[in-house]
């Protein structure tokens, strides 16, 4: 009873506010678009400016966090979503949320120009659309490498060699999307049995697992470890900042995921969300994506990005997102039971 009265009072209060607000601002008011994103903080201002210069009637409001935190936040808000559109989040995360009925399909204007690999092919209109690829890479610190007499590895298999014992760090797939991307790509490349055997061998060389996907490369850049398994964007960024890094794309093939967007089902700002969707597949947007990422969703646009490993496009594996999403929990559990159990402090 009490709750009901309270609720109706609140509704009355809020609607009164809204009426007042609309009355004052009139029709010319900008639409506030609540965008949940995992794109690096330093790029956000640029995207907002570029989009709003094309669509001055929309005002982007970012909620930015790391991939894991944004995904958890969205998942927790499931019963009462706040976001209008999720933008720049891993496709695997979007598929997981999509399975909960989080999104509505929309084919942005010009989607046909994108590569077929880069947007949702199971739903029509697609629920998620990719923007640019985020690719695994290995960071090798040349100064530390020399100190320990380590040859530069060029394949995933190289990393299991005895010389690298205790010199490799990778993200824990149970806490980092990048970590899962590596594990899932190894399984897709080698097949289950061989991949787990590979990881057994790799495990003996791993110094420790980190919680974040960018950390291994940051650690390699600072010389805390000679070799960090991370992703290319972070690697290039560290190298540009002056870190003595060699960035390697192992020759067997590399895992990747897509920064993608999807429109939330019951958004009150559908028109504005679609404007952002349309803009996000435009050539102009692709050129901006290309400033820091070497592979974007529209073929023929991307120019090489400074310090990205060469030939990266050819090394990207045929990533089966649906398979990865379906098997994720099984793989994570197996990984945890094999490598995340009891561990002792190690002598250097």
């Amino acid at each position: 009873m009490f709750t009901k009265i309270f609720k109706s009072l609140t509704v009355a209060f809020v609607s009164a506010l809204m009426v007042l607000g609309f009355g004052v601002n009139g029709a010319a008011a900008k639409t506030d678009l609540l965008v949940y994103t995992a794109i690096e903080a330093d790029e956000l201002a640029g995207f907002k400016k570029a989009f709003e210069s094309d669509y001055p009637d929309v005002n982007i409001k970012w909620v930015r966090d790391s991939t894991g935190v944004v995904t958890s936040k969205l998942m927790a808000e499931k019963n009462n979503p706040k976001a209008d559109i999720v933008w720049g989040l891993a496709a695997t995360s979007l598929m997981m949320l999509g399975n909960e009925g989080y999104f509505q399909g929309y084919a942005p204007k010009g989607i046909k120009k994108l590569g077929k690999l880069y947007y949702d092919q199971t739903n029509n209109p697609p629920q998620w659309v990719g923007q640019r690829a985020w690719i695994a890479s290995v960071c090798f610190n040349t100064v530390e490498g020399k100190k320990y007499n380590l040859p530069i590895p060029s394949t995933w298999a190289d990393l299991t060699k005895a010389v690298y014992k205790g010199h490799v760090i990778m993200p824990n797939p149970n806490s980092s999307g990048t970590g899962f991307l590596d594990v899932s790509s190894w399984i897709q490349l080698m097949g289950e049995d061989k991949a787990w055997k590979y990881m057994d061998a790799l495990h003996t060389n791993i110094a420790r697992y980190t919680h974040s996907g960018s950390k291994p490369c940051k650690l390699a850049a600072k010389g805390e470890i000679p070799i960090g398994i991370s992703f290319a964007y972070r690697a290039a960024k560290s190298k540009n900042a002056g870190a003595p890094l060699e960035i390697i794309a192992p020759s067997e093939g590399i895992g990747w995921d897509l920064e993608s967007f999807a429109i939330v089902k019951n958004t009150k700002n559908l028109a504005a969300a679609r404007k952002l969707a349309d803009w996000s597949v435009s050539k102009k947007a692709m050129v901006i994506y290309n400033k820091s990422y070497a592979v974007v969703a529209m073929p023929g646009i991307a120019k090489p990005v400074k310090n990205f490993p060469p030939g990266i496009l050819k090394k990207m594996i045929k990533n089966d997102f649906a398979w990865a999403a379906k098997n994720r929990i099984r793989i994570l559990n197996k990984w945890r039971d094999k490598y995340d159990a009891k561990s002792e402090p190690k002598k250097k």
Partner: protein
Amino acid sequence: MTGTAALATGLEVKEKVSREDWIMRGVLLAIALFLSVSILLPLYSLMSKGFQDKDGNFTGFANFSEFFATPALTYSIFNSLTITLWTSGIVLVLAFTFAYGLTRSCMPFKSLFKGIALVPILMPSLLPAISLVYFFGKQGIISSWLFGYEIYGPIGIVMGEVIYVFPHALTIMLIAMAMSDARLYEASEALGASKIKTFFTVTLPGMRYGLVSAFFVTFTLVITDFGVPKVLGGKYNVLATDVYKQVVGRQDFEMGAVVSMVLLVPAVLAFFADRIVQRKQVAMVSTKAVPYVPQPSKGFDMAMLGFCSLLGFIILSILGMAFFASFAKFWPYNLTLGLNHYQFDLMDGGSWASYFNSIELATWTAIVGTVMIFVGAYLVEKSKGFRTGRAAMQFLCIMPMAVPGLVLGLAYIFFFNHPDNPLGFLYHTMPILVICTVTHFYTVSHLTAVTALKQMDPEFESVSASLKVPFYKTFRRVTVPVCVPAILDISMYLFVNAMTTVSAVVFLYSPDTTLASVAVLNMDDAGDTAPAAAMGMMIVFTAAGVRLLHAILTRGLARRTQAWRKR
């Protein structure tokens, strides 16, 4: 009010409940109601997931049996207890000695040392851990001091946690020690007891309550902290990082809830232990008390000065290293110092807005929190009868500490963003951040207040009651002035923590209420260590500024209200 009446009828037979008692119970009930909404209900909405499957069907203890059947998860219980007990042991000894030096010796520079000791509170919690890497990591300047062991593991975690909780333990110890009755020492001396005997028969027993609460504060803070193990944990899994893995890595809220409940166990134990000790506590400051004034003793004072200097030096080097590293061009390969890291454009990305949001949050948290927490502690301690209600209240006050910030933040989403919650309008606003932060830091402040209040003789109340002075007048004229130092400490503590906290609010901020501490995290995430360090500096400066203001206020107010402490 009907609820109070129902609860109180049982007592009415024994004791007449006066109008004043009704007022006290009313206020107590209001605070209990707040805590129910801010901790109990949100926690319930998250914890109930522990008994459900992904689709919300009730599954009983299925998740629990899965937890105990997974060695990777259960082993963390052992790990968590190991590092927590080590940390608590070390911190208690250090904080006790430090507090002893500050209150019971005549060493010089006392206020300077107190200031230095509280420095770790001013730092965003990641900073000490990062500093330790610069000292003991592979590239660290004194990494050889670990005798071949790695910083990444239990050793590193314990070191980081000791620095993190030291000020918390020290605050409680200082308050416990500040209130002492010199007559006991005089008596002890007159009876010919040696210094050592006096220490064990007068000092330690008087400190008992402070020691116990300091232990539980340390214990729970460490077991729930995830910042330090995240940076320094290596392969060493603890419960707090497991919660992170479940919730942020796997979005497995069900298992996250199970691990959180395992984490809650120590808090429940703490509560009962606290009850038992509290029953035996006798007021230290009776109405006839005479404050203890330390007498100079050269050897002892020098020893204390030496100890405090050493600890102070360590704390300052931790802070200094973090600052140095933020000036160095590219650690460790290019150590040219330069201000170019500090040519930050804080305007970019609305960081100034975040900074002012943080100040707003901190101010509200300090004001609302201090009033509520102190009044609540007073009522829990000093109101008569109503035992069950007070015990329940005490439990509510201790609970927040056992809840990791990450869990609290998520629980708030589940509770406040539920479509049927009439309080839903709070979601994505500043008030929800204030509520969350006050709740998150409720326990330590509550214990500080309780420690101070416990040492006041109940005779103050009895006398005023027999003089027919209403309790609120006694509260205003006696209790509050006597407890001014503790009250200022609480508000300071809340303010600083509101500035630096990340774990809970990261789930709750909206584009209009972005916070500086979250900005630090995000900028560091993006690899922009420079602006991150700069924003971190802004936090440290602000907190230090408030600290300074606090010191001046304490001195001014103390002169007016604490004169009775001197002879």
